[in-house]
């Protein structure tokens, strides 16, 4: 429940996200507040760009421009933006270096990746 209080999503239909958070978020991937350093537009059932690179501790914001709701969800269901309705957005902070592959749980053919590098890496 500790992580639940850190959620700060805008949008609707957060039931799925709530369930996943209760199941336990991934170490290093948390719902975030503050300014994101990278944005991913969800448009025509694609994540654009499909790959974003950030530094550990930074956040990514997903913005849904489609009519249909979407999510950005870790492949192991270990982190999740929750459902984003049209024009809604959600942010996740990534604290640990690594590759975070994800998909939309509603439309599994939609995939993307967040590459998290060390803060002092060029």
């Amino acid at each position, binding site marked *: 429940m500790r992580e639940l209080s850190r959620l700060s999503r805008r949008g609707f239909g957060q039931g799925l996200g709530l369930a996943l958070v209760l199941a336990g978020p991934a170490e290093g991937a948390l719902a975030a507040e503050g300014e994101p350093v990278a944005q991913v537009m969800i448009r*025509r*059932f694609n994540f654009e760009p499909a790959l974003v690179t950030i530094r550990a501790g930074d956040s990514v914001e997903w913005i849904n421009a*489609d*009519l*249909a*709701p979407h999510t950005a969800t870790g492949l192991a269901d270990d982190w999740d933006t929750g459902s984003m*309705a*049209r024009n809604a957005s959600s942010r996740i902070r990534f604290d640990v270096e690594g590759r975070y592959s994800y998909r939309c749980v*509603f*439309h599994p*053919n939609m995939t993307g990746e967040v590459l998290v590098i060390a803060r002092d890496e060029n």
Partner: protein
Amino acid sequence: MNTLSLAMIVAVTATAASAHADDVMNDLEIAHAAYTADAIDIRYGHLALAISENDAVRSFAETMIRDHNAVNAAAGELLAELNVSPQDNALSRSLLEGAASKRAELMSLTGREFDCAYALNELGYHQVVNATVADSFIPVVTVAPLRTLLTDALVTFRVHEAHAGRMVTALECAS
């Protein structure tokens, strides 16, 4: 169910759609028909959730309900913004008649028979509706926001069509 069944679904739905869509429809009739087509697929989805025990079929049905509700919500917002009401028409009535018949057929099935019948119907239904939206609705709509909405909705429906195709293949319904 086999490929002949899919062909029959397409033929029946296409006949209903093309017989009326070929008539020139006004914007409000098109809005009504599009809304009706969405609502029909939402009902198919609820039926699938009530009958199917296949996880992939149930997941697809949930997606249909979620996405088509989102499209219809956007349509409702647009109509309210424009302060107009959609107009009932022959195509809408024909779609509803065809859907009632299909639901009766689906409700008589269980297990794999239902799953395949539902999957094949979803594929055929989206093929016909998508062709109708692309070829008969979007080119003649005069109000720009409605054209934009239909164009955006078509993106969603084409993803559904592809998803339905993969579901049919995975269920091995044609074999």
